[in-house]
């Protein structure tokens, strides 16, 4: 059941406020920032590998929690790691091992916080996809599956996520959700730093 829009936008607001600085840091991170403009192919490929090593464990944890609790979200359609593997394969790159064991997802609140980070990434992905199309000529088939996100369905799937969040994350769980989102983004930032210095 979909509740009225205002609690959702209030949750959205809370999550956005909590993660604003971290999102900005990631946006400016040397591994990712070239993707918003004129990245070279090696930069693009490095970002793909980093994204796999860092995101795959998170996606696995989220998937495991959803499977275990039988929640009404078709996560199979949202899993992006298979697409990322296809891109790596396209470039002939060996998939890197996981960079960490992933976030702890033990409650619905934590699930929504982590999903917010993962799903939110799809919108940014489209922005990157269009820039990389211009800069490197990538298309969905030519190394751009991961960043093409959900394609035309990106916006509607984003709205579906908020419906899900409204149902499973009541105001008393918001702090938990925000904490989970912040922790996940912090981990991303740290792991990207490691990637950068390696």
């Amino acid at each position, binding site marked *: 059941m979909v509740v009225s829009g205002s609690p959702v936008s209030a949750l959205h*607001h809370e999550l*956005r406020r909590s993660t*604003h600085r971290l*999102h*900005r840091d990631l*946006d*400016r991170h040397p591994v990712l920032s070239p993707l*918003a*403009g*004129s990245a070279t192919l090696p930069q693009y490929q490095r970002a793909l590998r980093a994204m796999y090593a860092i995101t795959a464990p998170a996606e696995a944890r989220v998937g495991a929690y959803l499977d275990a609790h039988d929640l009404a979200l078709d996560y199979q359609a949202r899993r992006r790691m298979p697409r990322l593997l296809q891109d790596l394969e396209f470039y002939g790159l060996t998939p890197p091992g996981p960079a960490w064991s992933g976030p702890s997802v033990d409650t619905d609140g934590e699930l929504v916080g982590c999903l917010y980070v993962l799903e939110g990434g799809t*919108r*940014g992905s*489209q*922005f990157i996809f*269009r*820039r990389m199309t*211009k*800069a490197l000529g990538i298309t969905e088939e030519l190394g751009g599956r991961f960043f093409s996100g959900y394609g035309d369905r990106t*916006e509607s799937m984003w709205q579906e996520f908020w419906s899900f969040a409204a149902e499973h994350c009541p105001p008393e769980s918001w702090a938990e959700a925000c904490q989970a989102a912040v922790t996940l983004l912090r981990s991303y930032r740290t792991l990207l730093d490691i990637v950068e210095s390696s």
Partner: protein
Amino acid sequence: MDTSSQAFHEALRHCESEPIHVPGRIQPDGALMVVSIQTTRVLQVSANLEQVLGITPQAALGRPLAALVGDANVQRLRDLPIRGDRQPSVPMIFRFDDHRAWPDLAAQVHRVDQDWVVELEIGAEADQRRLNQLLVATRDALWESDQETDIARYCQLIADQVRDVTGFDRALAYRFDQDWNGEVIAESRNDRLPSLLGHHFPASDIPAQARRLYVRNLVRVLSDVDGTPVPLIPATHPETGVDLDMSFAVLRSMSPIHVRYLRNMGARATLSISLLQSGRLWGLIACHHTEPLRVPFEVRELAEFIAKSVSIKLGSLESAERSAFMQQVQETLVEINRRMGRSGDIGDVLASLGGHILELLGATGGIIAIGGRRYPFGRVPTPEKIDMLVDWLRERSDSDTLHTDHLAAAYPLASGCEDCASGLLAVRLDPDYKNYTLWFRPERVRAIPWAGNPEKSLVDDRDGYRLEPRRSFGRWVEEQRGCSLPWTAIQIESAQALSLTLIEVLTQKALISEAKRAEARLNYLANHDHLTQLPNRLLLKEELEKALVHAEARNEELAVLFIDLDHFKSVNDKLGHLVGDRYLQEVAERLRASLRHNDLLARWGGDEFVAVIERLRGDEAVEETVTRLSAQLRRPMQLDGHHVIPSASIGVARFPEDGTTAVELLQAADAVMYQQKEKRRTDLPIDGADPNEPPHVSFEMGWQVNRALTESELVLHYQPQYQIDGRKLAGLEALLRWQHPTRGLLMPHDFLPAAEGLGLNREVVGWVLATVCRQVSEWEAILPAGVTVAVNVGPGQIDRDFAETVLESVRAAGVSPARLSIEITEEALERRADVVASLQTLAAAGIALAVDDFGTGYLSLAQLRELPISCFKIDKQFIDGVPGDTRDEAIVRSVVALAGGLGVRTLAEGVENQAQFEFLRGAGVDRVQGYYAGRPIPSDEVFRHLIEQRNA
């Protein structure tokens, strides 16, 4: 140098060589003895010794002093604190009570070489008590005057005090200038002697050796100029044969020249007190009396006390002046520092502070040279003259500072530069004159009131010219030219300090600011796109974040525009990267020009730009901005011979609806832009594309206008204008149309902007003018008298040769200029103040000028008054409202009233019905134009229309 001034200088040298310290005589007020310190025997005495001591010279010479004055006096003399050879005298009293019956004598003793010089005074009441009283009074007076900080006022107090103590008729305070000319700056006197206040005395009045003497011996007295000097016996030292040095002798006989000088001045007695400043003779207190006046010992003591007190005061005044000055110098340097920190450009800093620095040094021009580069400010000679001056200065490598208030005298090439460089103060900081400062002063013609003409006192005797003391001390005014105000010691000293520091500060700051500039440059490069110089996406994100914080704090809206150029890839691929770069630069300029000053425009990368519109007021404002950006972009562009019409897809995201962070807003704007782009995929806007496409996208309009001009596709239609009374034809307005081969009749707004964008203005207006004039000449026979034909001219069509182009068209067609009228919009007149001259030329030739769309612009009455206008065309928007709209009615009536007052006709545009016509007639409008009066007619029908009119 002319003969008279040569003679003057010769005489001066003569006077300066007079050995005034060894006159060999004393004043008759006392007696003098030279006594060997070792043997105490008397070696020399004045011829009047007997009058003073009661012992003849013969009896005294060679005898021990004790035999003359007794052992007790000799012992007291031995105990005197005599400081050494040639030091000021020390007073003592010779008492004779235990030796012989003789009154007490005041004595002054000092040492010269190995002898005592003992001076005894007749009738000296050695009244210690009186001395003490006077001393206390004088000290108190000095304390009181010590509060005074103005030198002239202080000197006045001192002159009063000295006269009071000494009882002289006149006491003058006298100050020396750099060249030792003196000026009376304060005076205290009774009516027995005339005033000399403000008078100048030439340096020759007190020759160099006298000045040297005055520094050593602070007080000189002459109690009677007519007293007969008394010689010494023997005249020279019996053992060494030298003349007695009387520099410190109180009774020293004065130079006969000086005595005559004093006589001529009307003085019988004189007292002169040296005023020193930091050990240098600063001035004198000179006292004169019309009668002989003995100056007792205690008064001399007081005078010396005053001299010393005043000298200390002068020193402190000078140091106060210096410290006040140095304070100003310091403040100036701090300010220079501050401004160098801000601007980093020496030129800028000197431009803003140069005036202040000059004021500080009392100069009117300055040059600071750093490492050979010169920074002039204020009034300075030409660079060539400076080159020569610096060469000359370099030759004279004797000193680091050179100052003169008469540059042309030392450096004749300076003559002719008196207006800016009569005075020069040069400070060099290295022998090669790479770093230096020059300070200039202009000529100050001085009228100097000399006390008598100093040059009229030369006597030519056998030894050459000699200065004869002048007989008149009346005012003799000399005009001095070619000189500046003299540089004072403190100015010279400060100029040295200031110059050094200035150059240090400027050089260091320049280095620091160079480093800062480099850092700023790096920062700039890191944050800006090198091609368009716009902020890059790093800076954009930063600025957008800041803007969002502001917007949120002030509860304002904000819009992010993501601008993506269409076809850029094609331009790049087909025309090459160089052309592509120029395309991007031009686009960036157009975008920048269409935004408000405060809006942020950045190059995101490639062919993408982002604009941030802050303080948004409603959606209309965003739409308006987007429309403006698109319109500006779509102006045709000529690139390397190719005509391109740029276009872009623009996506807008608003804060806070579409996102609250920079990233969200950018992503949202990008998403909208992408959708838009998908909707309208358009083709390459380069020559040869399909002309059936919409004009702003797919074909090159300007190129076609060009073709239209040559292929006679442009045509003119004429709309009649009528007199409102009697409806007689008053004029025709020529209207430009384009008979397009495929698109039919196009209006000017369809193609003129494109023509303008390609610089075809001149061609188009030239064609219109030539065609109108040719057609008028064809109709001349049938065109009623007074009917004019109007040509519309846009602001971009009036170039420098516009008037000539019009007159040439008129001449070429052989029509009367009175047939032609130029219509120009109010807005154009407002924007182009520079066209007034052209319009006046046309008006002078008889061509009428009408202001189109009158009432829609902001032309001021002052501008209107300057323009040779013959008609106001009231804009259609006001005519649409009449009758009925009271505001429009009022506007029409006001324009009519204004026109009436200025003697200008009125014409109503766009008149479409009877009611309007009637209202306008009632309001007093002169002429009408519009569908009601008559529609535009193709030119080939005008002739027939005119015939019909005539027949009607």
